[in-house]
């Protein structure tokens, strides 16, 4: 069996080339913050990032740092404005100035385009965004009296994943809402690299019934070291 376990994040992302299309999961938890930090150190540029949101601050992962360094050519996301206009993000400032490309996609359409990309389905119809400015220029079609829009699948060169548990074959288990985009991006990308919270076990160490992402999709694995070397989630938006 091929060895998929790498000892460093830098080594695991070393060969990601300029111009790569990269899927990045995460909705708060579930973001591969260690691999993103390594990608930021690595230097690849002209990247296309597909993610739920571009993030505002560096504690939300290194996408804002990649954007601020001018290394992201295009973002495909369900947010192109920062959540609070009083707190602009690196991305929103560049976008308002017309200095970065973006495609704004309703979140369910984004998720389904990724799912379709991993499922061999080139396009699908959805009722979402009919009657809005996002429907302009898209094919409309009526099924059973309701109007739908044609949306196209998304695939990527790479997905950076964040798992809870893994075995050395690459089987992954997620935990809590950290699952979010991980399983669908794992299937939609041609090359997946996962960071893993728990010690990576030998095959047989995970219950096959509980595996969320098959190891057939995963090419590289890195165990997250304890802090401060490894980046671990801090509580998000806790009530005071």
């Amino acid at each position, binding site marked *: 069996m091929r060895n998929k376990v790498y000892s460093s994040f830098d080594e695991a992302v070393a060969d990601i080339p300029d111009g790569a299309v990269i899927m990045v999961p995460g*909705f*708060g*938890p*579930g973001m591969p913050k260690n691999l993103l930090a390594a990608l930021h150190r690595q230097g690849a540029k002209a990247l296309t990032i597909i993610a*739920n949101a571009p993030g505002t601050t560096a504690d939300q992962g290194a996408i804002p740092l990649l954007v601020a360094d001018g290394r992201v050519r295009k973002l495909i996301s*369900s*947010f*192109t*404005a*920062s*959540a609070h*206009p009083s707190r602009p993000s690196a991305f*929103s400032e560049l*976008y*308002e100035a*017309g200095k970065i490309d*973006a495609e*704004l*996609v*309703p*979140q*369910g*359409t984004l*998720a*389904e385009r*990724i*799912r379709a990309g991993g499922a061999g389905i080139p396009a699908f119809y*959805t*009722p*979402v*965004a*009919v*009657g*809005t*400015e*996002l429907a302009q220029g898209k094919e409309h079609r009526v099924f059973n009296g309701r109007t739908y829009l044609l949306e196209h699948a998304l695939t990527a060169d790479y997905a950076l994943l964040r798992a*809870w548990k893994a075995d050395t074959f690459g089987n992954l288990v997620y*935990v*809590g*809402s*950290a*699952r*979010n*985009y*991980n*399983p*669908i991006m794992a299937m939609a990308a041609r090359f997946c690299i996962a960071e893993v919270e728990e010690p990576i076990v030998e095959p047989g160490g995970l219950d096959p019934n509980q595996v*969320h992402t098959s190891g057939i999709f995963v090419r590289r694995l890195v165990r997250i070291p304890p802090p401060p070397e490894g980046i671990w*989630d801090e*509580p*998000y*938006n*806790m*009530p005071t």
Partner: protein
Amino acid sequence: MTTKRKPGLDRETIAMRCAREFQDGWMVNLGIGIPTLCSNHLPEGREIILHSENGLIGYGPLATREDLDIHTVNAGVQHVTLMPYAAIVHHADAFAIIRSGKIDASVLGAYQVAENGDFANWKRAGMRGGGIGGAMDLAACAKRLFIIMEHTTREGEPRLVRRCTLPLTAPGVVTMVFTDLGVFEVGPPGITLKEIAPGWKPDEVQALTGARLHVPPHLDEVRL
């Protein structure tokens, strides 16, 4: 409540009043902002299943530092607890549940709601970018769409209007609106004032509203 006028309902009370609409057995999705507060005010004796776009089915009240699960957040990226019956799905399945019409009520915030049921909540005037999140999916596909918002903007401009001037999230979908000044039903006749905030008179609410309000002969105060 930033304008200089007499106080209406506070945010917790608006959320509590909205949550009273949730019926036994409903699956409800709460958007970010004031709608999130509904999760702490679910009506007793009714089983309400809370769905979150990031894959939680059956979450509970906001977590405290004591019962925090670092891996689990709601749509507003606040840590929440899970009910014993909870299940977790991936993002595409969370939206499959929405798109296939299984959400009984979606509660969202808005910049503007029009008397024809249109609403706008993703793009501000003069901006190139916007924040859609899951709002368009929920708006297009939930069985009922409830809006919670301040009755006017910070500048005192009405948010309940005849026609939206901001880009739409979805056309013709809003069923009820809950503001600091009352409860409103949106339907074929337009906007009906169903309940009014204590201390307010219908003509005062009308003066802060951009659409003609229908006022029933016997108007109740907001009931909690």
